[in-house]
């Protein structure tokens, strides 16, 4: 009798624990999945992005290098500060910037 009671209480405790973990896992999956999928999509190459899947076929960081190289987010911000700098009396920054952005171009070309 006692043993049976113990057994049921431990089972219900176990079930409760399982339900809690299931609930936590569901929340975590729901919250993180879109973010995870965005990162995975960013590692795709070419037309592989059109094949839906949970992870990329080949992992590549091409999109990131392209972002710097073709869209050139760093270069643009530097160029802008180099253009606006002299007006603000920041001649020294202009020289430093042009050198730095030339470096970026060379190293990626």
């Amino acid at each position, binding site marked *: 009798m006692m043993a049976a009671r113990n057994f049921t209480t431990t089972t219900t405790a176990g079930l409760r624990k399982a339900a*809690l973990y299931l*609930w*936590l896992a569901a*929340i*975590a999956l*729901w*919250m*993180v999945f*879109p*973010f995870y*999928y*965005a990162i995975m*999509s960013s590692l795709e190459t070419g037309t592989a*992005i*059109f*094949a*839906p*899947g*949970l992870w990329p076929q080949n992992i590549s960081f091409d999109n990131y290098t392209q972002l710097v190289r073709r869209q050139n987010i760093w270069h643009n911000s530097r160029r802008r500060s180099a253009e606006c700098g002299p007006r603000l009396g920041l001649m020294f920054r202009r020289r430093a910037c042009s050198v730095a952005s030339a470096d970026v171009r060379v190293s990626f070309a």
Partner: protein
Amino acid sequence: MRRQQLKAAAWFLLPVCLLLAAAAAWPLLRTLVLSLSDSSLYVMERPSWVFLDNYLYFLDGEAFGVLSDPRWWLSVRNTLIFAVTSVGLELVLGMAIALTLNHAIPMRGLMRTVLLVPWAIPTIVTAQIWLWMLHDQYGVINHILEVLGLIERGVPWLSQASTALAAIIMIDVWKTTPFMTLMILAALQIVPRDLIEAARMDGANAAQSFFKVTLPVIFPAVAVAIVFRLLDALRVFDLIYIINPSDENIMSMSVYARRLLFEFGRFGAGSAASILLFMVVSMLAIAWIKISRATDQA
């Protein structure tokens, strides 16, 4: 002495008043003035006063103006459905998650970090991610549902009239549930533990101690969160604008106003729509202030 202090206080308040006047009062007044004129991008003549004609007027038994436009009422309906449903779902889910996280559960720190992910992503990026995930041909969600055998071919969740608004509400719930959870979690942490223990000693079950003890204590903080979210949801713009700025089935009031203002160049009518939106939101805010004052005094 007192006069001097008052004078000093007025000087200290002046910068803030000027800032508020420049940032809030001036644009509002200008919109109000514009809404009473027929100013437009595509008319060369000087705008003239038309007073309330942008809102509603009758000519030969036909109604004109924003209030006579069925698309305006459709956007009002969409906005109200969006605001009430998304805030309601966020409240229920946020409450459930916050109650779970308030206990000493395993991996509590990790769960809190996970919760911050959707809230930390800019809405524009959120909209793009979901737009891609819900794509009818290449979207991963349709792919998963197909693999599970729940659907036969991809469903265009965001572009068919029957599911578009529901999908947008789901995205907003995804994005804003963390905010609700953190607000409720903060409120839950001020509930004295001995109150709950006393209720349990008196024989209250979990539901009773929640509704009779916890809820009354956290209610003021939760009410603030609800009102903030409601005001936010009534002004919803970026999410819907990214998903589809010209779909009438999901158009919100602010998307409608933007369309009149910048797509059709009708500054007068667009300003009238903006003022109507402002009136809806400010009525809610005033009602909230009145209610909270009344409950404070009671």
